[in-house]
């Protein structure tokens, strides 16, 4: 098992290193294809390799035509299987944090909550890999108020670090009857205003925490981005009457997410490469937006 893991990690890194060459090849093929389509002469630098490349172009299908990166590799098989999530907290959680984690376990379908106890993070990740979990979510707090969320995709996937703000939990709402029980159908997802590449990447990380829903479910989970603050909302809708009348009922917790780091490794790999990190002390950071345009 250990050796297998090491081998797979090495393969992954190797494929990552090949990406540069792959990209070059893809570019060349693309140029030849264009030249052929438009009827222009093939560019001179490609004359020697032109024959071989042409053959390859002919044999291509839609999967091989697009260059694949390690990013796609991470979520390549995510769409084929339903995700399996493990939820834990930091050590020695307070009661409000435990309640919040319990609520989150209902928000993500197919999620399992676990007491943290005194476990080390590397142990947790090892056991999750062995049991075929796809994601691990850790929640941190400050004096009862949840303030941090770490989403780690498991087979060497990326880890996204979020800060939580304006948290309103279901336990805080006094009128229990009004809010009712939490439905457990697979929800529809809405990602609004994630326009940059980094925004797409974040949206993907959050998207693959959920399974494929049925087309007629009434449960909706929304991640709405406004100037780098992502609002999480959880609703149930009802359509009364024909003429496009939709009634939204908010259930579940609501909070704002603020991304501050993405790492290209799991949580226990402290030395992993940093894909993106927030720079708040830069002079222009106030004017820049990273998740939208």
């Amino acid at each position, binding site marked *: 098992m250990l050796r297998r893991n090491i081998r797979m990690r090495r393969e992954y890194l190797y494929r990552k290193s090949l990406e540069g060459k792959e990209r070059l090849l893809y570019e060349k093929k693309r140029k030849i294809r264009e030249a052929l389509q438009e009827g222009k002469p093939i560019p001179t630098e490609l004359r020697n390799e032109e024959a071989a490349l042409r053959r390859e172009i002919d044999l291509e299908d839609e999967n091989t035509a697009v260059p694949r990166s390690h990013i796609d590799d991470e979520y390549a098989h995510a*769409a084929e299987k339903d995700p399996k999530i493990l939820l834990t907290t930091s050590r020695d959680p307070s009661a409000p944090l435990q309640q919040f984690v319990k609520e989150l376990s209902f928000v993500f379908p197919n999620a399992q909550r676990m007491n943290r106890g005194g476990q080390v993070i590397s142990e947790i990740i090892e056991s999750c890999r062995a049991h075929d979990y796809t994601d691990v979510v850790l929640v941190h707090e400050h004096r009862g108020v949840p303030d941090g969320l770490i989403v780690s995709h498991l087979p060497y996937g990326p880890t996204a670090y979020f800060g939580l703000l304006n948290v309103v939990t279901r336990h805080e709402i006094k009128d229990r009857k009004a809010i009712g029980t939490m439905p457990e159908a697979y929800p529809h997802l*809405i990602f609004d205003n994630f326009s940059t590449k980094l925004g797409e990447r974040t949206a993907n990380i959050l998207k693959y925490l959920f399974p*494929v829903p049925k087309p007629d479910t009434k449960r*909706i989970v929304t991640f709405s981005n406004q100037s780098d603050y992502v609002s999480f*909302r959880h609703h149930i809708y009802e359509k009364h009457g024909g003429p*496009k009348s939709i009634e939204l009922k908010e259930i579940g917790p609501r909070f704002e997410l*603020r991304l501050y780091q993405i790492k290209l490794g799991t949580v226990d790999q402290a030395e992993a490469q940093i894909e993106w990190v927030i720079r708040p002390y830069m002079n222009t*950071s106030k004017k820049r937006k990273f998740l939208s345009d």
Partner: protein
Amino acid sequence: MAGSTGAGEEALRRLMSTNQPSFLAPNPALSETARAASRHLFSALRPFCPKSPLDQLLVDGFDAEQIWQQIDLQSQPLLSSLRRQVKHFAKNPKEISQLKVVPLGKKVEKEQEEWMEESDGFDEELEDDEEGEEKGEEYGMEIEEEDGDQGGESGSEEESEEEDEEEKGEDGEGGGGGIEDKFLKIDELTKYLEKEEENFENAERDMRGKKDADDEEDTEDEDDHDDEEEEESDEDAEFGFGDEDEEAEDMENARYEDFFGAKKGKYSKKKKAQLHQDSESSDDEDDDMEFKKQNKGTASTHQKQLEKIQSKIEQMEKANLEPKTWTMQGEVTAAKRPKNSALEVDLDFEHNVRPAPVITEEVTASIEDMIKKRITEGHFNDVQRAPKLPSKVPREVKELDDNKSKQGLAEIYEQEYVQKEDPTSAPLSFKDEQKQQASVLFKKLGLKLDALAHFSFAPKPVIEDMSVQINVPALAMEEIAPVAVSDAAMLAPEEVFDGKGDIKEETELTKEERKRRRANKKRKFKAAGVKRTGKKMQEGALPNQVNG
């Protein structure tokens, strides 16, 4: 008024005459009489109380507690004034003799005589201040009890008490007669009293209503009333009508400064009805202020300005000498400033981070609008199931037919031979045959089902098979055709005709064309003849030569 007073006195009389034990049991008639009696007494006392809020004791429908409260309301200020009066009389017994008596008839005068006798008698008896005061105090206390019980139902008992008290009171008032010191001068007192009497008489005539003096049994009451009335009327005279009289004011508001040299101000004399020490002290302050103002008024405006500036300069110099506040001290660590002082000061520095969004109603509403729009469009960012790539090519499965062969062995050989000769006539392979059969069957079935199921059923258009008809005699090819039809009829005219170009009839031809035709025919014949002779020469030329 007379009638009501008569009824009231009647009620009082009845109360007096009832037995003591009868008060123990609740008796509605007795309570009625008691109420009437108390109302009468109340209204009789009413004129003596300047501040009484009630004109009449309200007894209808009120219980004992409420009636008692009303009486209490009237009697409390009355008590205090009476006490004061008594003290006053304790000090100045001679005044009693000069008290103005209400002109209610002979009884009043009789009383006055009585008083005079008593006062004279008692002057000699009692000469001590203390005794007089004691008596006065006793009297005061008794008066309390008396007033306290007046509102109750046992009024009869007290009336006798009142009488006794009155006598005692008279004793007390007369007891202090022999005292005189530098404050109290008897001559002044007599003069004052005479003046007061005059005032009082005038007042009394206005205020006093007609009282019924015929009732003997009410004399006792009247005695009581009169005594009190006189005292009260004295009070009234003092309070209501003595304002303009400065002397009276002085007597009442006698203070230290009046006798032992007033201080600078003159306000104290002018103030009306202020008996408290507070007013006295404020008077002193006012006096001081007056003096200071007079001093400042002497300085000029320029001097005033200079003084102001001087004071400011002093302040600023003092501030400069002291150590500065921590906010002005440049770099300050937490140890050098007081605890939590940085929280109060408005520190100014730039924040380089966009502040966290405050979730208002509008923000929530906008998010919900966006969600609703997405729902109506049906545009969700769900995870899509990726189509699985074919990992292997599906292997060709060879099917073996395990039925017995329908063709005999000779037929099989025959087919193989035909295949060899003519490759086009290859029989269909087993698989294709089955497939074709299946497809034909299914097509038929499908057609029938469509005809049943569809509302607008259009039958499938028949595609005609193109097959070439070969110009072959009937024997060579078996055709499913009617016997009567000949070969010629099977073929189309263009299949029969083997000419070229435009054909013309004999009749259509022109002369030149006929000639041309004949010439062509001759030429051909000659050519053919030459060929024949050529051949004949080759084969055997001798027979032709012999003949010719």
